[in-house]
């Protein structure tokens, strides 16, 4: 009985955690649908992008590169570089996940995005698939729905509302990070260090934005693990 209750509680928590991502994805997915239509991509192909790839930045990049006539091979390579940051994110989630029911892992891994990762990784206490999957797939549903809405209805949302909703994911990242910063100096140093390094790398244009994120996460987390030897970040309240 108690196990069943815990399961329901986790699912409910997962869906609730998905809400900010759902809100944040709608305007971005709609923008993708609108852009795809403008560039003459069919509705089926547009949906397939969102259904199969489910990685916002690289989907936009693909449309932009297609528009200037870049070939599929090059776009796929650029996608690999851009989305390789998820390797680091999945590795981090895998270490936190306590629930190892193998057949659900491929599904959970498919929906690892910057946003679902951030919410899951900073969840207090244990991370279970009962929590992770509903959160991820609420986000996925919103990504698909937003894509279809954008393609079919165009800019159904007023410009001002869409622009305001553009702040949602940054607000979510901030709201997730701030309590951890408040509790730990190490977290503060890591997050600030990463922000500064990412700013320097992206504005100096030494590397592309995809690389900038990967390098920043890799270097800052590695430097942290080296410097803060023996210090543990508090995970629980």
């Amino acid at each position: 009985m108690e196990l069943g209750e815990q399961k329901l509680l986790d699912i409910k928590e997962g869906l609730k955690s998905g809400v900010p991502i759902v809100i944040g994805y709608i305007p971005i997915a709609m923008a993708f649908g609108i852009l795809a239509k403008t560039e003459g991509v069919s509705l089926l192909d547009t949906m397939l992008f969102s259904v199969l790839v489910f990685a916002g930045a690289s989907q936009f990049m693909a449309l932009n590169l297609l528009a200037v006539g870049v070939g599929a091979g090059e776009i796929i390579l650029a996608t690999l570089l851009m989305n390789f940051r998820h390797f680091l994110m999945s590795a981090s989630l895998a270490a936190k996940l306590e629930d190892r029911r193998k057949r659900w892992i491929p599904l959970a891994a498919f929906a690892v995005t910057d946003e679902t990762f951030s919410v899951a990784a900073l969840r207090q206490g244990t991370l279970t698939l009962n929590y992770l999957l509903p959160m991820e797939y609420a986000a996925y549903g919103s990504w698909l729905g937003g894509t279809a809405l954008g393609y079919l209805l165009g800019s159904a949302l007023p410009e001002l509302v869409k622009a305001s909703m553009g702040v949602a994911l940054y607000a979510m990242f901030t709201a997730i990070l701030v309590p951890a910063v408040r509790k730990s100096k190490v977290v503060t140093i890591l997050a600030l260090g990463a922000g500064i390094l990412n700013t320097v790398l992206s504005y100096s244009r030494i590397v592309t934005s995809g690389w900038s994120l990967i390098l920043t996460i890799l270097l800052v987390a590695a430097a942290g693990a080296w410097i803060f030897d023996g210090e543990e970040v508090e995970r629980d309240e």
Partner: protein
Amino acid sequence: MLVLIVGMMAVTYLPRVIPFFIVSQTKLSKRIQRFLQFIPYAALGALIIPGAFSATPDMPSAAMVGILFAGLYGWFRGGIIIPVLGSIIATWMILSSGFGMIM
């Protein structure tokens, strides 16, 4: 087009799924564990900065006010849904008032 989409799926999915099988089958040293534990904080820092400064490109101050609200609310009260909704409303208010023009 289908070749492109399936190719993109493959190169996106593989980095997402492979770590789950590596990490669960390896005994990790303390240092690697710490590295993996630090990744979210580094990632969040890099996801917020500098992107947040151009979240509302026409009027960056509007997004700044919204994100400031999310940060302050998160600091004192916690939670995610209220900070996110509040930041959208705050951003909308600044954008629609045109107040951000003078900031």
